């Protein structure tokens, strides 16, 4: 069986909701069924075949080719299988996903991995704002799974994040880890202003001091040797990421905050 390949053939004027195109929702469908499925685009609904050239038939392995930043909701609530995207993706990539794998070669728009529960998203490019965050007004962001970003992320990475891991090989934007409840964010590059704003619990791991320093609402708790760090770095070894090759360390400066709230979050900076 060959991967089900959806090659975008039109220049989109409106955004397209791709949430029906996941391994779960396509299970048991043949190519003709898929071609006839309707996708919501702006105020119209369009059949899949009008937007995409379709080839292959393995619905557990879906490829989007020539993808555009107007394709929203790819991998919506998927629980298994694999989606590969050649090009960019729009907003809400992998929203609510509970399992499986998404890999994209380009950039993504806002809310990648929004409220995801499990599985893995690898973004080989830049991600927009609110990676792994909660929808606005909601109380919990991602609650499981892993997001790897090889490029940079926008503002509010991991907003309201509750569990799971966000690994950023490039830089993170402003308000990284804002309102974080738990979970782990690691950034190899730099981070923007207001790191850990209103953070409750959770861990932000940095190999170097951020350019803007640590804000005043985090207390310096001194230097520590933390035994869990080598174990965590060992767990990165299996990932297809720069993090697999990072030289592990266990000596860190620990900052606890945000003391404007319950102050149980931590920023760990390598020393």
């Amino acid at each position, binding site marked *: 069986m060959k991967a089900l390949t959806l090659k975008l053939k039109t220049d989109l004027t409106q955004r397209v909701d791709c949430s029906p195109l996941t391994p779960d929702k396509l299970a048991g469908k043949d190519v003709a069924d898929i071609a006839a499925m309707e996708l919501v685009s702006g105020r119209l609904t369009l059949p899949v075949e009008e937007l995409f050239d379709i080839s292959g038939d393995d619905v557990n392995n879906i490829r989007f080719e020539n993808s555009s930043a107007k394709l929203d909701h790819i991998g919506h609530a998927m629980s298994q299988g694999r989606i590969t995207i050649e090009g960019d993706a729009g907003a809400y990539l992998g929203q609510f996903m509970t399992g499986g794998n998404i890999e994209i070669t380009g950039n993504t728009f806002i809310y990648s991995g929004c409220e995801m529960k499990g599985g893995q998203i690898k973004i080989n490019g830049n991600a927009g704002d609110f990676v792994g965050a909660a*929808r*606005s*007004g*909601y*109380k919990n962001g991602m609650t499981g799974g892993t997001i790897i970003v090889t490029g940079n992320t926008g503002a509010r990475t991991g907003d309201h994040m509750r569990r799971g891991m966000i690994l950023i090989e490039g830089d993170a934007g402003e308000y990284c880890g804002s309102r974080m409840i738990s979970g782990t964010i690691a950034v190899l590059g730099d981070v923007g202003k207001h790191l850990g704003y209103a953070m409750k619990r959770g861990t932000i791991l940095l190999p170097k001091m951020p350019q803007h320093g640590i804000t005043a609402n985090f207390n310096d708790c001194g230097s520590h040797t933390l035994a869990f760090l080598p174990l965590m770095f060992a767990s990165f070894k299996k990932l297809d990421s720069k993090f697999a090759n990072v030289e592990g360390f266990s000596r860190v400066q620990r900052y606890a905050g945000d003391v404007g709230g319950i102050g149980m979050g931590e920023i760990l900076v390598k020393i």
Partner: protein
Amino acid sequence: MLLKLTGGRIFDPAHEVNDVVRDIYIRDGRIVEKPTDGRVDEEIDVSGKVIMAGAIDMHTHIGGGKVNIARTMLPEDHAEAVYERTELLRSGTGHAAPSTLTTGYRYAEMGYTAGFEPAVLPINARQAHMEMHDTPIIDKGGYVMLGSDDFLLRMMAANSDQEAINNYVAWTINHAQAVGLKVVNPGGISAFKFNQRKLDLDEKNDFYGVTPRDILHRLSRAVQEIGVPHPLHVHGCNLGVPGNMQTTLDTIQGAEGVPMHLTHIQFHSYGMEGDFKFSSGAAEIAEAINKHKNITVDVGQILFGQTVTASGDNMRQFAGAPHAHPNKWVCMDIECDAGCGVVPFKYKDQSYVNALQWMIGLETFLMVDDPWRIFLTTDHPNGAPFTSYPHLIRLLMDKSFRNDMLSTLHPEAQKATHLASLDREYSLYEIAIMTRAGAAKLVGLADRGHLGIGAAADITVYTDNSDREKMFEKPDYVFKDGEMVVRQGQVIKITWGTTHVVKPEYDISIEKPLKSYFDKYHTQKMSNFKISNDEIVDDGRGSLTIQPLHKGGRL
């Protein structure tokens, strides 16, 4: 255009018609006599079907500031219930706090043709009316809220005479375009701002030195004396407090024979017995209601699931805030006029307290003898969204269904109730009283809630079904002012209901102190405060229906 509904079983308690097969003739939105020449333009065969007037929800939070806050605060309520637009209907969202258009559609689909917003704050009345203006099909109206407003409390602290208070009440009802007067936690909303966290019936507001009993006494007299048919609509003291049934009994006693409507009585019927220090006071409350013919109540039944509680009672909402689910809430003052508290809530059937609340509501329904004095509400959305009414009707009409539900609830709560031993099952006739004839009489709607000659042709046609939930959730036809708006539970035509108001007379001299008060303290001028008739009628879509005052009224 003369429309004939042929052969239906009529339930019209206002005329003591109980299950009588009769034809109904409709012309120009009204029910008319059989034409002498016997000529009809259209005939619909409804033989064997149950025919009632359109249902009236006399207490439902469908407009005004707090509903909007609930909508704004709860995106999860939108995301879980999204309604796409169709050729006929506009899109909408929401389950516990649905958008205005959705509210109108859902009510009509269940055979409701009127709903009354019970907490119109005078200062926010314009917004409440605008929201109701956007609620299609059903008729609407509002009870304007006084009792914790600075102007009234100042008058009372200065011991103004009753006539001055009557004047102020009549002026407010007129210019807020209301159909009745509501009081919420009398004086308590104000006391909350002076750091009082509870206020019992005979406890003084620290600042004004006025007690809730005084306020109830003054306002219920005012309503009676100016001739407003709807009695003072009372959300009493100590909502939700274990042991509050004594306060409620005192309130009933304290009414001294003056008509008073006690709303969502379920939340005010709690005892303090048992290991959990929380028990049912329904029996005592029902007995007091049965004895005091001046008292009417609506129940405020809770049903299990996610909803949001929205109330003017910021004192009690603040106390309830730690139970918010999801964990976010709002309590605020509204321009020293009143308060507002919005707390999302999930009623759980395995919680002792929630299970007992469910039982207390049903006990009250079953133990109050006179269906003309008790009304079917969930205090939408506080006890449950209004869309659960068909389920509630089945609970009332079907004892075995009720007991099956009961047996799944928290076991300790089951031991604390004798609901299982209550054999009463409501009849269709009694349901028609509760949701139609009685409600129309209570609100003071002369031409609604009945099927007599001259009545507005708000008519609901059901297929009799022993599963009452199925029967009431999907009427065959709903007519609003003579036009068929729903067929087989689907909206097929959009109309815009009228706004019911009363216009009690007042002495214009009240405007002198009011004008300087507005100039000195309020964010708007008195002239802007007044809502003109034109604003309600607006684009020709809305209309005003002025309901007659009671005898004794001065108009």
